[in-house]
C-alpha cells in the first residue's frame, strides 16, 4: 500500500545534523532582532506602562528574519509552513501569559516563568498534533476521493 507524502512525513522529527548548516551570520541577525525588540519593549514600558511594554513581548520580531532566511535557503512554500506553525505558537503565547500571571500572583517567584514556558510548549505541541492530524486526514480523504 502506497503512502501519500503527507502520511510518509513524520509528525515531528529531530535532526541535530542540521545545526552544522546554521551560519554564524544568521545567528547574529537573530541575536540583533532579539536584543532590539527587548530594548523596544523596555522603552515602551518606561515611557508608558508595563502592560503596553508587555504587548511587545509577543511581537513577531523573529518571524520576519526566520522566514526571509527560509525563503532564501529553501522555498516560499516552506515559509508558509513555518508561519502556519507560528500561528499555533502564538496562541501558545497567550497560554504562556495566562499561566505566568497565575503563577506570579500565587508565588511571586521567577519559577512561575519556567512553568509558563512548559505550558507554552505543551499547548503549542498539542495544538500542532491535533491540527496536523486533522489536516492529514482531510488530505488523505480528498486523495481517496480523487483516485
Amino acid at each position, binding site marked *: 500500500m502506497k503512502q501519500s507524502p503527507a502520511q510518509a512525513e513524520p509528525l515531528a522529527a529531530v535532526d541535530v545534523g542540521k545545526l552544522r548548516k546554521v551560519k554564524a551570520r544568521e545567528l547574529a541577525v537573530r541575536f540583533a532582532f532579539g536584543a532590539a525588540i527587548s530594548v523596544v519593549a523596555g522603552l515602551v514600558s518606561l515611557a508608558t506602562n508595563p502592560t503596553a511594554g508587555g504587548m511587545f*513581548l509577543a511581537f513577531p520580531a523573529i518571524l520576519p528574519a526566520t522566514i526571509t532566511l527560509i525563503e532564501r535557503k529553501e522555498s516560499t512554500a516552506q515559509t508558509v509552513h513555518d508561519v502556519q506553525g507560528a500561528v499555533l505558537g502564538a496562541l501558545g503565547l497567550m497560554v504562556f501569559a495566562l499561566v505566568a500571571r497565575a503563577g506570579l500572583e500565587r508565588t511571586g517567584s521567577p519559577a512561575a516563568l519556567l512553568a509558563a514556558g512548559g505550558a507554552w510548549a505543551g499547548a503549542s505541541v498539542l495544538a500542532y498534533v491535533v491540527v496536523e492530524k486533522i489536516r492529514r486526514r482531510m488530505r488523505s480523504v480528498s486523495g481517496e476521493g480523487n483516485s
Partner: protein
Amino acid sequence: MQDVASLALKALNGGLFVVGFALLGEMLQPKRFSGLFSAAPSIALANLLVIVLAKGAGEGIASVRGMVVGGFAFALGCLAGLPVLRRHGAMRGSLVICATWLVLAAVGYRVLVL
C-alpha cells in the same frame, strides 16, 4: 542609570534566548512543527526574568497582561499574512504580519485599559 543597566541586560538576555530557541527550531522537522518556535516565548522569558528579579512580581504581572493581547495579535497577524506570503513572498508577508500586529495590539490595548 538603573534603567539603562536593566535595558542592557534585557537586550543581552533577549538576544541569547532568541538564538537558543532558533537553534532548537532549526533541529526540528517538518517546517510546520519547527514553525512553533518562530513564536516561542524567547523574548518574553528573557525580559520577564529580568523584570521579576529586578522589580518584583507586580510589574511582571502587568507585563504578561499585555502579552495576552500581543499573542492574540500575533496569531491573527500570521493568518492575515499567509495569503500575502503565498503570493508575494517573505518580505511583503512579513510587512503584513507586523502591520496587522501593530493595529490589533493598539486596538487590544485600548480595550484592555479602558
